[in-house]
């Protein structure tokens, strides 16, 4: 009898505990607090050749921050394939890091969720003011007319990487400055039995970055000025077609690249199988794959004619990483101090050197390390001929739908099917229909 009663008591108690914990899981939708002033959780994006490399680069700096402020930073390096989903989950549940890195093109989409702390003038003052940052980098921190959702951390730009040895063997004296020159050079390179230009045809983000630049060069935009998708604009169609035509018509991108999505084109280039690569800040990556700096040259991405510049001479997106504070942070002051630390001149120099990126902080750019020929190309591109991807709330959806359309068009080209103006328009039409109604 007693044992039965004990069992019943146990069962009821357990049930009550379960019910109580089930109810207690919710979180308040309020802003940040300072409940936990001694710790911070930081989600870093994967900038180095591997996650282990990132930890090696970041940990000493985090230790430095702990020594200065007494705040212990718990680091997690999140791979790119997971980062956006992790942030979305964190936004939904309110359980997330205090500080996090975001791809700068996501700024507007994440801004619309309200999950990130807005950087108004008051917050910017705490980290030394908005004026410290390069303008083009600030252009990719959120929708126009709203307080930025994040602060620029690392800046990158696309450049043309070319293998000096293959160029010499093919008798090419200088890197191509226009797409026509690139196609012409391609014939000489193919005669040497090498492939010409690498691409990541199944990587949606890479596809977007390139067709965005092609659209700019054709004087077109994927979104109207009031933020509505305009994917089937004839100029946009022409631009997308001319990018896919690098494989379909000009045959400078090998058909095998249509299924690349894991940076295989970088390793093709590093192994000397392929003459050219359009990439952002590839130096550290190439070095880790055993290609010394002296083996390749860096030039601006080609344009249709003339030289890179603003308007239709744009030759890169503003690539980069922003650092943001999660609105539900439990250590608001600490998080702000950490952003200040990460964007300080010293840290900017150390970190951007390690990741072969360019500091978005003007005063840190003076370091001689950023004056090498390679970095000069990137710096000039960022300063004069780079444009920010559309800062619209649906940017993330745009990357998926149009990126998939380009992936499918590459698949057509690889399978030997014709890529025509009509087929490109149809693919873009489908992409546009999948966009949520604005």
């Amino acid at each position, binding site marked *: 009898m007693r044992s039965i009663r004990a069992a019943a008591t146990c069962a*009821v108690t357990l*049930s009550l505990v379960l019910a109580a914990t089930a109810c207690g899981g919710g979180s308040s*939708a309020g802003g940040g607090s300072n409940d936990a002033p001694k710790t911070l959780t930081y989600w870093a994006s994967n900038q180095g050749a591997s996650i282990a490399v990132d930890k090696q680069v970041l940990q000493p700096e985090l230790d430095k921050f702990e020594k200065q402020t007494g705040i212990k930073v718990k680091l997690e390096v999140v791979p790119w394939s997971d980062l956006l*989903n992790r942030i979305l989950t964190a936004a939904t549940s309110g359980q997330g890091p205090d500080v996090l890195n975001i791809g700068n093109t996501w700024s507007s989409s994440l801004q619309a969720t309200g999950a990130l702390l807005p950087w108004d003038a008051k917050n910017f003052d705490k980290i030394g003011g908005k004026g410290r940052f390069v303008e083009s980098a600030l252009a990719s921190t959120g929708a126009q007319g709203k307080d930025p959702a994040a602060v620029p951390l690392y800046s990158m730009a696309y450049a043309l990487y070319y293998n000096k040895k293959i160029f010499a063997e093919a008798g090419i004296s200088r890197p191509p400055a226009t797409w026509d020159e690139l196609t012409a050079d391609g014939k000489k390179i193919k005669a040497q039995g090498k492939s010409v230009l690498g691409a990541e045809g199944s990587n949606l983000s890479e596809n977007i970055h390139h067709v965005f630049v092609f659209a700019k060069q054709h004087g077109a935009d994927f979104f109207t000025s009031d933020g509505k998708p305009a994917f089937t604009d004839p100029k946009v169609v022409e631009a997308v077609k001319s990018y896919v035509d690098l494989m379909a018509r000009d045959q400078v991108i090998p058909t095998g690249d249509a299924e690349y999505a894991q940076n295989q084109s970088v390793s093709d280039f590093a192994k000397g199988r392929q003459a050219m690569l359009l990439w952002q800040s590839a130096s550290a990556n190439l070095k880790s794959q055993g290609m010394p700096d002296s083996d390749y040259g860096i030039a601006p991405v080609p344009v249709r004619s003339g030289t890179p510049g603003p308007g239709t001479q744009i030759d890169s997106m503003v690539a980069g990483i922003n650092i943001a504070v999660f609105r539900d942070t439990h250590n608001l002051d600490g998080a702000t101090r950490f952003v200040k630390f990460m964007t300080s001149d010293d840290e900017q120099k150390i970190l951007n050197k390690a990741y072969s990126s360019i500091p978005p902080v003007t005063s840190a750019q003076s370091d001689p390390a950023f004056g090498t020929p390679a970095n000069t190309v990137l710096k000039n591109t960022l300063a004069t001929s780079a444009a920010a991807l559309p800062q619209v709330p649906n940017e993330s*959806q745009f990357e998926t739908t149009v990126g998939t359309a380009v992936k*499918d068009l590459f698949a057509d080209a690889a399978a030997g099917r014709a890529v025509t103006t009509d087929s490109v328009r149809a693919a873009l039409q489908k992409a546009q*229909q999948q966009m949520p109604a604005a």
Partner: protein
Amino acid sequence: MTTTALQEPVRGTPSGAPAARRPRRRTGRAHRALLPYLLLLPALLLELLVHLVPMVIGVMMSFKELVQIYIRDWSSAPWSGLGNYRMTVDFHAPVGAALLHSFLVTVGFTLLSVALCWLIGTAAALFLQDTFRGRGLLRALFLVPYALPVYAAVITWVFMFQHDNGLVNHVLHDQLHLTDKPAFWLIGDNSFYALLTVSVWKGWPFAFLVVTAGLQNIPGELYEAAALDGAGMWQRIARITLPSLRPVNQVLVLVLFLWTFNDFNTPYVLFGRAAPDAADLVSVHIYQASFVTWNFGTGSAMSVLLLLFLLVVTGAYLLITSRGRRGADA
């Protein structure tokens, strides 16, 4: 079960017990009647917590316009009534048409995959029914695909299916010269066959395992009697083995169907977040509709529709197969 448990102690009490004890005995009986439910309560609550609550929340989400602006506090998302459902089943509009296409691809893929898994699994189990040297080794070997972690197994297939350096093209094109030029397996139309191959490779060992177990329950005398009557191998399979395996197969096919229909890992690891049209399975499609385009309302509506479809199919399947069996038994 409850009644026996209750009767046992009552019967044990002496019949000539004083009358004064009777009321107490009655409360004791009431306690004992409650006890099983009390003991079940934690499990029930856990079940609610783990299964039902998320499902109810999912269904609720499907009636909301849950786009990116609301995900941070999604109780503030406006109710959209049947809006999400209307959008997903409007097969003339792009979203509905894409879902229908994905659904049809999934149905075709599932039917083929389940049929092949069952066929190969049953054939292998029959071949390994008689004892011979190395049977244990073969059985273990056959189960390897089932035991491997999905990600590791599928990523290996990704390497093998690669266009430039993949093993599949090396064998088909370079060595056997079956194709004019190396084929693409991970993009374009061939992706359907790539997906089917991996799915069957991954799924048949389970069919093999279940059928092997089922075969152990068929009495040997049946075969002996059939042999005496002069039945050949095919006759024995058709008249003894398959009918005896019927209850096993009923469950096996259902489980394979549900697993294959809902499989997310295989297509996701093979193709990434944007599967080619030819291999656009509904699970990845829903993932893309909700996570990638950040519209969790339509994603949930699609999930609910999928759940209803699977419920109907499962119910109909069980109804038909059990009725058929009852008819056969009679």
